């Protein structure tokens, strides 16, 4: 069994991934590809929305308020 751990960048225009298996002897092989479906994210630049409100909204949003008195 050979394990290759490789980070790749996929985009709409480049979704092809290559592996160098040149060290293996010639022959027929079965490749089993396991992909972490939660892609790594670049968080160096973070986007935030700018929602304007007429009043200051610095109230405390605890889940007690979010779910109301009936717990929903």
């Amino acid at each position, binding site marked *: 069994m050979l394990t290759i751990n490789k980070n790749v960048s996929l985009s709409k225009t480049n979704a092809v991934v290559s592996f160098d298996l040149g060290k293996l002897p010639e022959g027929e092989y079965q490749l089993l590809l396991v992909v972490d479906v939660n892609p790594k994210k670049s968080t160096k630049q973070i986007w935030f929305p700018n929602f304007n409100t007429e009043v200051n909204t610095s109230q405390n*949003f605890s889940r007690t308020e979010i779910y109301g008195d009936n717990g929903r």
Partner: protein
Amino acid sequence: MVIMEDKKLFLDTNILVYSSLTNSDFQHIARGKILEFATNNYEIWISRQVIREYLSVISKILFTEPDFKIDDVIISVEKFSNQFYIADEIKSTSEILLDLVKKHNITGKNVHDCNIVATMKQYEINNILTHNTKDFIKYSPREINVIGLL
């Protein structure tokens, strides 16, 4: 501020809300804290529960504004979802939740906070940034590390 060196940070719903509101006293500090962790190579995480709660809170706040458009809120959720790691709840998350409920004797609405902790443990996220530290203090430091906004 004591940070466990696992390089993962979970954003509580209130942090996302504050970071989105231009007329909030906490907007700049919320954004600053998130950027500070991101600059220090932390993975920034939210969960499906946080997304639902954000939708609920933001739409409720903005609903009475004259230029309110639900599409703007939806776009903000989509962009947050694209740039942050998303913790999905799976079967074992519910099992962790039940363990925590039993262990900490959690009842009523506190279950919702407990589910955040369960989701964090599912994904081995130790740090939560929140403005509601009192809601999570019972879990700290044994289960998670609670980082206050202020």
